[in-house]
C-alpha cells in the first residue's frame, strides 16, 4: 500500500501522465486505419477509373463489343471477341500444359524427393516466378520461338495435322509460343500452392492407405488428391488469373494479329492484355482509347471474380489444415 499516494492511484506510472500517451492511442489506430481504408478505396478507385474510361465504348457498342470480331480504327468499329478468344485459347492451353507438370513437381517435392533435395528444388522452382515477364518474353521471341517454329511445330503438324489445332506453322511466333511462355509463368504458382496443400495432408491418412497395401501412386490417387481437390482447383484458377492478365510476355511473342478467330495454334493471334499493351500508345481516337479501356474492364472484372473465388477457397482449405499460405 505504500506505493499508493493520497488519491489511491499508483504513484509510479511513467507514461500515464504524459499527454502523448492518450494522443498516441488515438493517432496510431487512426493513421493505420486510414492506411487500411486507402487500400480498400484504391480498389474502388481502380474499378471506377477503368469503368469511366470505357464509358464511351460501353455506350457506343454495349455488350455487343464482346461478340463482335473486328478492330477497325478507320471506320471506328471495335469489338473484343477475337481478343477474348485469343485469351481463352492461350490461358486454357497454358493451364493444360502447366497443371499436370506442376502437380507432378509438387508430388515429387512432397512424396518422392530425398529430404536434402526438397528445399533447394522448391526454391529453384519458385525462383522461376521471379523472372520478369519482359525477360521471359525476350527469351520467347529470340530463343524459344525459332526452336518451336523449326522443330516442334512442323513435327506436331505432320503427326497430328488432322486436328485443326495443329495447322501449318506461320512465319513467326504465335499462339503456341504464347502458350508455352504462359506455361512457364504459371508453373511456379500452381506448383507452390499444390506443394503446400500436399504437405497439409494428414500423415495418418497416408499411412493408413499404405498400411492397407496400396502402392504409392494409389495412395496419392486415393488420399492426397481427393483431400486437396478443392485447393488444387483454386490453385489452377489462380494460375488462370495470372495467365489471363499477363500482357508483356504475350505481346512480345504472340504476333499481334487482330481480328483472327482461328483454332490453329501455330498462327498468330492476340489477347486482351497484349492488345492493350501493343495498341494503347498508338491509339488514334477517343473511341479507340475507350475501347481499350473496355478491354481492361473485362480483364479487371475477370481478375476480381477469379481472386475472390480462388483465394477464399484456398484460405478455407488452409485454415482447415492449419496452414499459413502467402
Amino acid at each position: 500500500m505504500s506505493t499508493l499516494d493520497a488519491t489511491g492511484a499508483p504513484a509510479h506510472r511513467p507514461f500515464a501522465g504524459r499527454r502523448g500517451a492518450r494522443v498516441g492511442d488515438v493517432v496510431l489506430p487512426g493513421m493505420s486505419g486510414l492506411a487500411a481504408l486507402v487500400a480498400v478505396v484504391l480498389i474502388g478507385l481502380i474499378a471506377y477509373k477503368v469503368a469511366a474510361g470505357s464509358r464511351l465504348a460501353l455506350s457506343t457498342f454495349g455488350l455487343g463489343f464482346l461478340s463482335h470480331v473486328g478492330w477497325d480504327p478507320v471506320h471506328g468499329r471495335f469489338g473484343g471477341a477475337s481478343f477474348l478468344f485469343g485469351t481463352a485459347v492461350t490461358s486454357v492451353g497454358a493451364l493444360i500444359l502447366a497443371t499436370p507438370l506442376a502437380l507432378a513437381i509438387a508430388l515429387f517435392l512432397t512424396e518422392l524427393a530425398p529430404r536434402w533435395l526438397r528445399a533447394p528444388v522448391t526454391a529453384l522452382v519458385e525462383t522461376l516466378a521471379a523472372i520478369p515477364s519482359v525477360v521471359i518474353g525476350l527469351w520467347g521471341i529470340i530463343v524459344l520461338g525459332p526452336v518451336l517454329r523449326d522443330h516442334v511445330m512442323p513435327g506436331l503438324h505432320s503427326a497430328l495435322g488432322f486436328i485443326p489445332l495443329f495447322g501449318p506453322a506461320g512465319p513467326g511466333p504465335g499462339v503456341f509460343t504464347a502458350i508455352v511462355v504462359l506455361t512457364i509463368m504459371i508453373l511456379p504458382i500452381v506448383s507452390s500452392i499444390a506443394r503446400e496443400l500436399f504437405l497439409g495432408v494428414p500423415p495418418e491418412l497416408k499411412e493408413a492407405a499404405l498400411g492397407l497395401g496400396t502402392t504409392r501412386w494409389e495412395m496419392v490417387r486415393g488420399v492426397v488428391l481427393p483431400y486437396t481437390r478443392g485447393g488444387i482447383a483454386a490453385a489452377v484458377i489462380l494460375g488462370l488469373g495470372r495467365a489471363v492478365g499477363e500482357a508483356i510476355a504475350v505481346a512480345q511473342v504472340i504476333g499481334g494479329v487482330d481480328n483472327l478467330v482461328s483454332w490453329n495454334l501455330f498462327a498468330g493471334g492476340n489477347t486482351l492484355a497484349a492488345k492493350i499493351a501493343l495498341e494503347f500508345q498508338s491509339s488514334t481516337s477517343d473511341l479507340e482509347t475507350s475501347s481499350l479501356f473496355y478491354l481492361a474492364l473485362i480483364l479487371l472484372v475477370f481478375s476480381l471474380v477469379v481472386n475472390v473465388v480462388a483465394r477464399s477457397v484456398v484460405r478455407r482449405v488452409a485454415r482447415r489444415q492449419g496452414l499459413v499460405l502467402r
Partner: protein
Amino acid sequence: MSAAAPAVFRRANDRLARRRVVNHALELVAWLAAPVGVGILGLVVWSVAKRGASQLNLDLLTKPPVPFAIGTVRQGLANAFAGSLVIVGLATAMTLPVGILVAVYVNEFARRPVRNGLGLALDVLTGIPAIVIGIFVFGLVVVGRGQSGYAGAFALAVLMLPYVARATIEVLALVPDSLREASLGLGVPRWRTTVGIVLPQTIGGIVTGGVLAVARVAGETAPLLFTSSIVGNQIAWNPAHALQTVPVAIFELSEQGDPADTARAWAAAFVLLVFILVTSLGARWLANRSRRKLGRAAR
C-alpha cells in the same frame, strides 16, 4: 508361385505386378517433372547470361542511347538505369509507410471481420493484372497531366502495396503475444507497445518483405508503358518528367529487329535478372533466418 498355384492367386499376382508397373511409371513421371521445372529456369537464366554477359560493358551503364547510330557508336542504356532507380526508389518510399500501417492496423487493431475483409482486399489487389493498374494510373494521373516519373512510381507502388502489407502482417503475427501483454501490463500505452516493442521485433522481416517487393516490381513493364515511357535519350533524374526504365527499354528494343538493339536488350535483361535473382534469393534467405530466430524467441 509354381505353375500349380490356383488361378485366383495367379490373377492376383498379375494384378499386383500391373499395379507396381503403374506406380513405377508415375513415380518416374514425377521424378522427371522436377528437372523439367528446374531446367526451364536454368535454360532461361543460361540463355540470358550467355547472350547478355558477352554484351556487357561499362558503356551500358554509363552512356545514353544514340538515336540512328551508325557503325559502332559507344552507346548504352544509362537513361533506363537512372530512371529505374528513381522510379523504383520513389515507389518504395510511397508504399512502405502505407503498407506497414495497413499491416499494423490488420494485426494490432482491427476486429476479426474487418481483418478478414482487409485480407480479401489485399488478395484482390494482388490479383489485378499489372496492365490494368497501368491503365488505371493513366486514367487517374496521366490524362490531363501527362506522363511522369511520379505516375510510373505510383503505378508500381500500387503493385507493391499488397506484398509489403502481407509480408509485414506475416512477421507481426510471429511476435509473441506475451511480449505485448508484458508491455501493456507494465502500463505502457498501446501505441508505444506497438511502435516501441512490437515493430522493432519485426524490422528484419519488414526489410526483407520490402526487398522482395522491390525485386518483384523492378522488372515490371506493363504499369510503366502508359505512365512513363515517352522519353528522350538523355540521362534524366527528374521524376516530374517521364523517365525511361530498364524493363520498358528491353520491351521496346525487343520489338525492333536490329541485332544491335537486341544485343543491348540482352545485356540489360542480364543486369536486371542478376539484380532480381540476387535480391530475391538474398531476401528469402534472410527472411528464413529471421523467422527462425523469431520462432525461437517465441518458444
